[in-house]
């Protein structure tokens, strides 16, 4: 599969269909996987594909340094591909000026504190129904294998992994749940790694950075941390695709993906809306239908 990927990217670069390919390579300590930016067809052998390809590379598509490299091809997993759909639907990228190279992903493994493979899949992968990335231009890998994995996950997709963890949280009393998040947020250092790793946190000036006037406390106090984390979750309501990049990036190990999943569930339950599913779909917050429920207005 790695060879198939390299050949596809080589062809794109050789034929000058794209100027740069954003993919995964062994760049970190001990060969840890991170983003690489290949511009020369002779360098495609640096590209890798394996269960350590954790990052959502779509975060790079809106960065000025990367845009300056020219027309891009990007390697994406199923979850990452949904982020590209949202970026296109929100008109942040020109989808026609991008080649999306999807891979068949059998799940990515969690890392230990020092970046080694922990040998278990991320919770998001346990409920994944997009082992073959959708809405892509080129698909690398065995589609029948992906379909079999989708089928295996389908019966339990709503009650395993993060959904299971969230159900446990929702079963708590309000006080217990508040204490849970208070403990989580007390660790927040306000580094904004969550925001910076998120492909959909593309605002030029984040509300957390606004200081004339200050909208939310920039302090890593409990008040400031609650304000920031809740605000970010709300800003991603109906937009978050559940790739988990925020939680993976958080140096304080805060379960941000659960926060976002709560709102993603609400979007689906209340409006039948799944972010990133359909290219061309109107954004949930930016559209309405006469059939929308109104029982949230009290």
């Amino acid at each position, binding site marked *: 599969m790695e060879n198939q990927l390299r050949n596809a990217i080589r062809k794109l670069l050789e034929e000058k269909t794209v100027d740069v390919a954003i993919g995964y390579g062994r*760049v*970190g*300590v*001990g060969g*840890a*996987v*991170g*983003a*690489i*930016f290949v511009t020369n067809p002779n360098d495609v052998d640096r590209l890798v594909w394996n269960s350590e390809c*954790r*990052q959502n590379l779509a*975060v*790079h598509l809106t*960065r*000025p*340094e*990367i845009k300056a490299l020219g027309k891009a091809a990007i390697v994406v997993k199923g979850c990452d591909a949904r982020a590209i759909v949202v970026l296109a639907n929100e008109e942040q990228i020109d989808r026609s000026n991008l080649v999306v190279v999807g891979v068949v992903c059998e799940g990515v493994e969690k890392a*230990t*504190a*020092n*970046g080694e493979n922990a040998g278990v899949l991320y919770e998001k992968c346990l409920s994944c129904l997009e082992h073959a990335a959708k809405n892509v231009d080129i698909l690398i890998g065995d589609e029948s294998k992906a379909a079999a994995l989708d089928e295996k996950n389908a019966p339990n997709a709503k009650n395993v992994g993060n959904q299971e963890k969230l159900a446990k949280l929702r079963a708590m009393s309000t006080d217990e749940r508040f204490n849970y998040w208070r403990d989580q947020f007390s*660790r927040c*250092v*306000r*580094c*904004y*790694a969550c*925001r*910076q*790793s998120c492909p959909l946190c593309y605002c030029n000036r984040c509300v957390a*950075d606004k*200081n004339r006037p*200050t909208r939310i*406390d*920039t*302090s*890593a*106090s409990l008040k*400031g941390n609650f304000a920031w984390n809740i605000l970010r979750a709300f800003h991603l309501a109906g937009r978050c695709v559940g790739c988990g*990049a925020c939680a*993976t*990036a*958080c*140096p*304080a*190990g805060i379960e941000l993906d659960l926060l976002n999943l709560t709102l993603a569930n609400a979007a689906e339950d209340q409006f039948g809306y799944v972010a990133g599913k359909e290219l061309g779909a109107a954004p949930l917050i930016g559209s309405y239908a006469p059939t929308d429920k109104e029982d949230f207005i009290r």
Partner: protein
Amino acid sequence: MSQIVTLEQLKQTLGAKLKSGARVVAPVLDGELASFKEIADVEQASFEPRVCMQNSIKEFFFPKHETLFTFARKGNDVELTDAPDFDVEQIVVGARPCDAAALPILDPLFAWDYQDRFYQQRRAKSTVVTFACTKSDAHCFCSAVGGAPDNTSGSDALLFDLGDGSFEVRTLTDKGKALFDGKTSESTKSGAACPAPVVDFDVKGIAGWIKDNFSSPVWETISLRCVGCGACAFVCPTCHCFDIVDEGSYHKGRRVKNWDSCQEAMFTLHASGHNPRGTQGKRQRQRMSHKFVTYPEKFNACLCTGCGSCSRACPASFGVRPCLEALNQEKNK
């Protein structure tokens, strides 16, 4: 002869300190996550040998968020109230040598043009009990910046895990001696740290390259994968940049000091909209220059202890070690 203390005795010593009203900071395990936290009971602490911690001990000397003073409007006047002094004894136990080593590096910074009483009071009131390393991982590179798995710099006492539920205690300062006075027993056992991590680059040489290659295009290419998240700076035991902001309302509020990071675009954004460090490459160059060139020139100490926390925390598999290795490659071209 060496001095040893059993885990039970260590816990009793800390327990007595807690009882006497001291603040005790120790590694606490929460699921798979190990972090330094203030503890209320010694049983909360976890003293297993550990390479990775979610935070460094920095925040107990230089908190992530600290009130400097409060203000309140009283008629036409404004009443200012200084933040209280830090006057409680603090014991930080379980530090790694690369955590503790950061403190003497930071001391001159907080006692330079401005005497930072907040940091200085915490330093004066604190005793740092460090555990010599029993293992290292691929991120560790203390040996490249003058450190070692049994480095004593910044510690008041250095403990060696003997693997049988006891530790050899080497007291290094009066504070360390006072903490363990009468608590240890003599033994013929002697502890040793793990071997020093192997590094194949010369930091001094790379520092010279950094100084001479301010305009190198390499800064931009190696920084392409950096998403500018700042996690590296926030987990770093030596990064110390902060922002000062006012919080509250027109009527009352406080001035606070909050951690900040040069990896974020906002850090240098001017009111005009111009940003002198407008790209991630320029921000990475700033971080590396500060650590390996400007800080050593000013304070005669490298602003990096080789702990590897940055590369462990980096979501993009970057950090100081990968950056040094990339620069080393460039230097040797």
